């Protein structure tokens, strides 16, 4: 039976329910620009952290392994501490003269540990009494 009344026809049409769309893809949600920016910022922070750590924990190149120093047979400067104003002031206060203090700062006299049974040649020569 044909429908002649508009309202009746509208009611009939409303009985047809539109189909549901597919869900918004999760992968598209994950890759939203905002999240991408956050991920990039986090990655940049990690890289920066690694760089800073690698610089601050770089091994002191003035240190040489004991065996290497011993095998070379030559004297090596073992500069374990950096020169600070405090250390320089202390040297100036205790040194017999200004020149001695400057010399000590420039060429610090560090005791190089020698293996047991070996003696420093300079120390041995210093013990000798020479007649001039």
């Amino acid at each position, binding site marked *: 039976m044909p429908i002649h009344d508009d309202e009746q026809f509208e009611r009939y049409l409303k009985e047809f329910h539109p*189909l549901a769309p597919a869900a*918004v893809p999760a992968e598209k949600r994950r890759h939203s620009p905002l999240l991408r920016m956050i991920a990039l910022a986090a990655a940049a922070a990690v890289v920066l952290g690694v760089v800073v750590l690698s610089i601050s924990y770089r091994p002191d190149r003035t240190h040489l392994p004991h065996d290497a120093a011993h095998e070379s047979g030559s004297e090596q400067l073992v500069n374990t501490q950096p020169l600070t104003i405090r250390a320089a002031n202390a040297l100036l206060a205790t040194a017999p003269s200004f020149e001695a203090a400057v010399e000590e700062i420039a060429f610090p006299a560090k005791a190089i540990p020698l293996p047991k049974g070996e003696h420093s040649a300079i120390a041995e020569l210093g013990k000798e009494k020479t007649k001039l």
Partner: protein
Amino acid sequence: MQPRSNSAEVDLLYRRHGRVLLLFALAITGDRSRAQDAVHQVFLRLLERGNLSQVADMKAYLFASVRNAILNDTKVQQRNVVLDEESAWFDPPHRDYAAELNLRRALRGLPEDQREVIVLHLWGEFTFLQIAEILEISSNTAASRYRYGLARLREAMCVKENSCANPR
């Protein structure tokens, strides 16, 4: 990072309006995948937004956004819209798939501007004033498009005997 409440609100909007938005997009594009893409695009943009409270009429905003997304896409593609005959648009009453096909064909036979208004008023339950705002036309134009569209739809659907089921 987007607030959790925004995501929940968007999910709710999707469940509430997703069906009619897809139908509206189908009525414009005629192509299911393009229609779905347009709806998804709008909701993904909503998810990216931090705050939805600035939008006064969210439902009208959604429909206008979907329409704009489709129109922008159509401008890019520069092609004529051909309505897809294969995919269903409706879940018919009492699984009457012949009636669904009949309705879909009748809707397809309407001019696009009448089809838009029919979908928005009948299934979207918008007033002619709201439709006027969404489509950027006057409310009188919206109302007259609806009247003409409905008359043509009824004519197309009921041209054969018993092609319009009895309303229950």
